[in-house]
């Protein structure tokens, strides 16, 4: 890989931990050049890398078609371009891949590069299986959030070499009417701890015990599909095969039986706790820790125990 680029979003001006690790990971291949393309504010001035990194700040705008994204694409000829999976990153990488007429691979769990060839393992069937593939032509790579960066070399922090901004080509094909951020809670895909609840809660009014536990843990709340179908909880909290897929450090499932469609959304969790009053609930087979009991009794006790420390 002669030239590499990383497309990344920032939050409050900072890169996510995974993106910082991705920069080090890519630099370990010693490309001649690394471009860091940033969506959002930049309030950092160094990255850990083996080679100097050029910073390009992209205008915070809608990149919704190949014309609007053309100025970015023009600077990426013969680059291998990487990003950490998110809605915006995958959308932009796929548009860029199509404009530059290159292949793209997404859902990447492992990646290595030698003799001009990428060997990749990709997560498929919602994490139930993986697929190994190789390519010498793909140039766009979307890396899963739970990619294992633990083996990467440590490089010293280098000051970003230069910085310039890239403006969108204005096309007037699309405009934003309004933006509604999810407020008052941690966004599910970002959460390190998630507390999910299902129909076992019996009534949407009972959700305070779930929210209290989540608050004590600093966790996001999630729900099963039946619960969002019943409108007990908003659709964006639905975790499962056709909902959000999560990979937190800890997932606590309360009153969820563990249908295969729900498991498909939580397979990537590091530690799974299941609390259910039905000892036959299939979810217990997929749990690290299981408690057979009434959620109305157990959850407040766990919350109390957490608050006492």
């Amino acid at each position, binding site marked *: 890989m002669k030239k590499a680029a990383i497309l990344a979003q920032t939050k409050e001006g900072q890169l996510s931990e995974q993106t910082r690790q991705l920069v080090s990971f890519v630099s370990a291949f010693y490309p001649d050049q690394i471009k860091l393309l940033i969506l959002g504010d930049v309030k950092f001035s160094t990255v850990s890398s083996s080679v100097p990194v050029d910073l390009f700040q992209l205008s915070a705008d809608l990149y919704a*078609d190949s014309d609007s994204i053309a100025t970015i694409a023009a600077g990426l000829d013969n680059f291998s371009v990487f990003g950490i999976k998110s809605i915006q990153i995958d959308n932009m990488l796929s548009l860029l891949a199509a404009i530059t007429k290159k292949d793209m691979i997404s859902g990447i769990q492992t990646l290595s590069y030698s003799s001009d060839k990428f060997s990749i393992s990709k997560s498929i069937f919602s994490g139930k299986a993986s697929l190994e593939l190789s390519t010498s032509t793909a140039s766009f790579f979307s890396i899963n959030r739970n990619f294992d960066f633990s083996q990467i070399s440590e490089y010293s922090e280098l000051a970003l070499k230069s910085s310039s901004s890239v403006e969108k080509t204005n096309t007037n094909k699309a405009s934003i009417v309004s933006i509604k951020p999810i407020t008052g809670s941690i966004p599910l895909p970002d959460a390190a701890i998630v507390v999910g609840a299902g129909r076992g809660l019996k009534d949407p009014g009972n959700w305070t015990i779930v929210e209290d536990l989540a608050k004590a843990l600093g966790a996001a709340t999630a729900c099963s599909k039946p619960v969002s179908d019943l409108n007990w909880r908003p659709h964006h909290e639905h975790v499962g095969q056709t909902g959000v897929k999560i990979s937190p450090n800890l997932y606590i499932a309360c009153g969820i039986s563990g249908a295969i469609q729900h498991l498909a959304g939580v397979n990537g969790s590091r530690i799974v706790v299941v609390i259910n009053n039905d000892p036959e609930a299939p979810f217990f087979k997929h749990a690290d820790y299981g408690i057979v*009991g009434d959620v109305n009794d157990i959850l407040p006790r766990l919350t109390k125990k957490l608050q006492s420390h």
Partner: protein
Amino acid sequence: MKILVCISCVPDTTSKIVIDPATSQISSQGLTFIVGPYDDYALSRAIEIKESHSAEVIVLHVGTAESEPLIRKCLALGADSAVRIDGNPISSNQIASAIVDYVRANPVDLILMGKESIDYNSGIVHGLVAGALGYVHFNPVMHLDMTADGLHLTVEMDGGKMEINCTLPAVLGCQEPIAEWKIPSMRGIMTARTKEILILPLSSPSEVQLVKADIAETARKNKMITADEAEQLIDLLRTETNVL
């Protein structure tokens, strides 16, 4: 107005995935196939638009003849005609190229598909198609309404959602609650029998090589804690697993 709905045919969501030892790839033996659930949402919304705005709905699938009963089901739901691009694609790029070639020869106003297929989970075919055609692209779209000069959309974004006005032509990746899944009527099933399925060859090669597939099993501790000692969980999470 012409709407193209691209569908994937994927193993049913309850399928147990097994590897065929002879090929080291996913075995299709004993699997029940369905139209991708997200694609089903896209098709349902296209049919609603057909009913309210007299659009023509064409279903496109890149795959083998085994998918024809599922394509026929889409016709029974109300699609006017279907195209099957005959082949066994192994990459998103191959599928996107086939769709792009078809649309260049047969222009449409709106291309809808699911936000991702639930088998290979790539979620990039819509972006690849939009980028190649120069069409507007949004994904994942939760609400879609026609306006006098284009579309009004609600689109999920990282950490929220946004309302968008955009022009046609457009390519949209769809997800719930864009429409309710529909069930074919008896009349729909009867008329679908005589609707056309055009078969075209798949000409785009794959430049990605498949090596092998594996089943991913996450080993779990399966440790049970009695309800009386539920508080112990917090200590175990702190000491045994370091997640708190």
